Each structure stands twice: as structure tokens, then as C-alpha cells.
């Protein structure tokens, strides 16, 4: 018998609302043309749809202007863009870049590559046993050699919401720019980049109920203006001769080549959908699920929750004393429950908690209490077999 799907892998990617799928399809069915080029009506229509998505996103995070919104392939590319363009220009030998122990590999490796190239140093803020950044350690790490801070807003493995405003304020008191990896935060917390005063912020469409392959880099306009292009090609130029090229204005300077037009339109649609429901309502619902699930699994024998921060998004990571996460994943799959098992692209964090991997249930706006019950019953069955 096929069991109904209980999808609890929302931190990996979310399911897409019909509205988003329809809007994406509509582009291909009714207005497929390249943007920023044609004088014909179809191209103008596509350009308008694409650019109005940019405005939706600008308003969603309250950026100052739409020229601060760069379309990328996702959070990973957004971080690589900043490491490559801002980093190569500004980071020198002996400089230091600060990240935290709970970073996703995508917010570790680009900085490591930059440090290797420039002979700079990567410094790492430790986390406590609850999975929270130890702020005092950050205060100790920051110094006159620090030239950049890049921090995850909400952890994909632990669920921890970091005190980013405090981090930004301290860094700014040393004139150090801060980048936020908001991939997991953006579908749960209301983000206001002007209020946060972050210098850069990255997120992906597909964790926000939008399509894969599309993401956003927000950057303060003064940084983006001063930064060299990331990739060369069409759309990012205003004049090309074989001797010299003049780059296009923002945001196009960072958008070489034909972008994922349907993806950008889909992302705009996803934000419209979310705003209709209300981010506060989504957060309230996910918090209820997290609280209920946390309580329910706490009684299970040998289960340890990894990540018990005071402020969390809807992520429940855990580890059984005697059952490997991979076995948990296979058993739950037979109950129709989809969770993530593994290191969640945060291997240094797994080492910090002395586990090879964890099982992670992550909640989305469509999950229910009944689905959490299915998860917990599945876990009880596992204990019967392995206990």
C-alpha cells in the first residue's frame, strides 16, 4: 500500500504552490522571449514580468532600490559572487574573514578559496552546546585585521536563529561589512535589509516555495557600484569594442547572459503567495509544529536533539544513540515520511557535536500536527527494531 507523503524536508527544498507553477508555465506558454533585447511586444512583455519580479523582491526585503537586487542561481552563487568580486578587490594578505562554526559549506568554501588565493586567514566563531554562536568569542575574534564577516542568519542543520543585528552593529563599529546567508531565514522571518543594515544578503528561490536555479543577492548600492563584474558576457555591458568594454549599470552589471527568466517570475509569484498568507502566520504555524515535535521526540529513548537554541526556525535535528541516521531515513521512507539524513553540508558543525550525521525534520507552511504524529510513530517503530 502506498502511504501518503509526509514531506518534512523543507530545509532542503520546499514544494511549490500551484500558483507558482502556473506563473512559471505561463511564461513559457504565453510570453516566452528573451529580455532586455527585443523591440517586439513579446520581449517587452517578458522583460516587464522579469523586472516586476525584481520589484516584488525589493519590496519583500525592503531594499532601497531595485538596482540592489541581483538575480543569481541561488545562495551559493550569491556568496561566490561577493567572495570573488568584492573579496578579490578588497581582501589583502594578512587580512581576516570571520564566519561561524554553523555555516553551510557554501558559506565556508568560497571564503576559504579567497583566503588561499590572498594568503588571508579564515576565523571561526565557536558555538555552545545549544548550538548558539558564542557572542563573546566573536567580540574576541574581531580586530583591525578583520575585513569581512559572513554569517548564516538561520542554521539549516540546527535551526538556530543568530543575533545578526548585534553582529552587524559590532562589525560596523569597526567599519567591517557583513554578509548574511539568509537561505533558511527568508521563509520564516520578516527581513528588512535597511533595518538590519547588512551589506550583503543572499537567499534561494526554492526554499521560499519558488523554483530551483534562481536566487538573490542583495547588496548595498555603494558596494555594488565599486565592485568589478563577476562574469563577462551579454547584458552586463553597455559598449564593447575589442580594445575596451564599458559595463552596464546596476543591477545588470552582475547579470551576464540570459538569466532564468521563468525562475525569476516564479520567485516573484512565490513571494506574492507567501505575503498573501503572511510570513508571521507561517512562522507562527511552523513554531507550533516545532514545539509539538520537540516535545514528542524528547521522550524517545536514546534520542538527542542537536540544536536547542532559544530562538529557532522549524528545524528539528536529532541523533539516536544506537541507530544511524541513514537507517532512520530508510525506515521513515517506508512510513511515507521524507526527512533528510546526513551532514547537511555542515561537516565542521557535525564534528563540533561529535556526530557523523543527524536526522533532520524541517517544517513548512503546509505541514500538520498529524504529520508530526506520523513521524513520531515511525521513530517509535525504529526503536522497536533496533532497541
Amino acid at each position, binding site marked *: 500500500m502506498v502511504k501518503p507523503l509526509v514531506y518534512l524536508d523543507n530545509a532542503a527544498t520546499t514544494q511549490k504552490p500551484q500558483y507558482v507553477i502556473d506563473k512559471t508555465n505561463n511564461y513559457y506558454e504565453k510570453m516566452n522571449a528573451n529580455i532586455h533585447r527585443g523591440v517586439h511586444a513579446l520581449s517587452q512583455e517578458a522583460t516587464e514580468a522579469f523586472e516586476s519580479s525584481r520589484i516584488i523582491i525589493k519590496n519583500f526585503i525592503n531594499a532601497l532600490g531595485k538596482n540592489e537586487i541581483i538575480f543569481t542561481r541561488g545562495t551559493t552563487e550569491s556568496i561566490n559572487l561577493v567572495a570573488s568580486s568584492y573579496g578579490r578587490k578588497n581582501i589583502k594578505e594578512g587580512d581576516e574573514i570571520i564566519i561561524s562554526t554553523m555555516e553551510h559549506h557554501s558559506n565556508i568554501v568560497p571564503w576559504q578559496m579567497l583566503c588561499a588565493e590572498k594568503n588571508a586567514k579564515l576565523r571561526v566563531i565557536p558555538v555552545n552546546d545549544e548550538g548558539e554562536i558564542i557572542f563573546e568569542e566573536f567580540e574576541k575574534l574581531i580586530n583591525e585585521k578583520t575585513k569581512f564577516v559572513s554569517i548564516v542568519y538561520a542554521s539549516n542543520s540546527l535551526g538556530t536563529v543568530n543575533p545578526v543585528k548585534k553582529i552587524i552593529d559590532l562589525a560596523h563599529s569597526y567599519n567591517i561589512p557583513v554578509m548574511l546567508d539568509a537561505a533558511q531565514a527568508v521563509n520564516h522571518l520578516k527581513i528588512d535589509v535597511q533595518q538590519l543594515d547588512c551589506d550583503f544578503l543572499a537567499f534561494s528561490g526554492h526554499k521560499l516555495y519558488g523554483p530551483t536555479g534562481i536566487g538573490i543577492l542583495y547588496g548595498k548600492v555603494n558596494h555594488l557600484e565599486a565592485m568589478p563584474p563577476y562574469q563577462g558576457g551579454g547584458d552586463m555591458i553597455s559598449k564593447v569594442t575589442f580594445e575596451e568594454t564599458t559595463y552596464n549599470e546596476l543591477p545588470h552589471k552582475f547579470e551576464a547572459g540570459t538569466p532564468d527568466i521563468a525562475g525569476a517570475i516564479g520567485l516573484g509569484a512565490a513571494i506574492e503567495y507567501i505575503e498573501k498568507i503572511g510570513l508571521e502566520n507561517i512562522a507562527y504555524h511552523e513554531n507550533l509544529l516545532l514545539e509539538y515535535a520537540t516535545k514528542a521526540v524528547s521522550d524517545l529513548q536514546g534520542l538527542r536533539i542537536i540544536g536547542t537554541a532559544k530562538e529557532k526556525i522549524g528545524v528539528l535535528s536529532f541523533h539516536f544513540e544506537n541507530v544511524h541516521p541513514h537507517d532512520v531515513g530508510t525506515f521513515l521512507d517506508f512510513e511515507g515520511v521524507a526527512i533528510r539524513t546526513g551532514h547537511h553540508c555542515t*561537516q565542521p558543525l557535525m564534528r563540533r557535536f561529535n556526530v557523523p550525521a543527524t536526522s533532520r525534520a524541517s517544517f513548512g507552511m503546509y505541514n500538520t500536527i498529524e504529520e508530526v504524529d506520523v513521524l513520531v510513530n515511525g521513530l517509535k517503530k525504529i526503536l522497536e527494531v533496533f532497541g
Partner: protein
Amino acid sequence: MDQELRELYQQVILDHNKSPRNFRLIDHPTNHAEGYNPLCGDNINVFLSVNDAGIIEDISFQGSGCAISKASASLMTSMLKGKTVAEAEKIFNKFHELVTDKLGDNPDIDELGKLAVFGGVREFPARVKCASLAWHTMINALHNKNEKVVTE
């Protein structure tokens, strides 16, 4: 338990997971290799003492992994102790064919003995690497390759 799941997690596998055999270090191994599966974080070290006649006098493993990988390593070490290197390679090939479903529906697996319990793995493509990690690591150790085995 579901039938297919029961095929994967047979009692022998659960037993070896709970009390793995030869789960220890060998002080001065003649051969050693480390294996790693980045997908799930499984990590294993295989140690061997092979004598001049090419007989595996002792074999052991250490590491962390799921029930399938741990039981596979445990059963492998039990099976290969006392075998020659050539025999070990032959059994490796047969085992590999079993879990990757190259033997068909009615495989001739007499020589695999207890290892036949891993037949259920072929229904779970995502778990084949779990069952075969210890074996690939063992082969690398025998060939004295020092590089890490990585499966994903």
C-alpha cells in the same frame, strides 16, 4: 515491518550491527586503508595482517556507519579471516555483483554464505554504497593504496 524492509534489515544484519565482530585495531597491520562516504558521513578503517603465503591471518575494522555498513564490515571480516588474498578478491567480486543486482533473480550465491543477507540491498539503490564501502576499503588495503576510498 514491511516485507521489503525486512529483506534489507534481516536479523543477521541487526545482530552484527548491535555486536560487530572484529571491531578493533590491529597493532601492526601489513595492510590498512580508510574509506569514507561523504553522502552519509560513514567512515571506516580496515586493517589486515597478511602473511608471506598470502593468507589473511587477521582482519579488523573500526569506524562509524549505518547498520548496513557496520554489518557488512563485520560479516566481511568474519568471512575473510583465513582466506587467501586471491579468494578475498573473488568473494569481493561476487558480493559486488550481488548488491549491484548483476546476478539476476536467482543468483548462485553459495560461496557467499551468510553474505547472501545483503541481497535485499539491491532494492535500495541509495544503500548499495553502505553495503560495499567496507569491501572497497578492504580491496584498497590489499592493493596497498593509501588514498582514501570515497563512495557517494
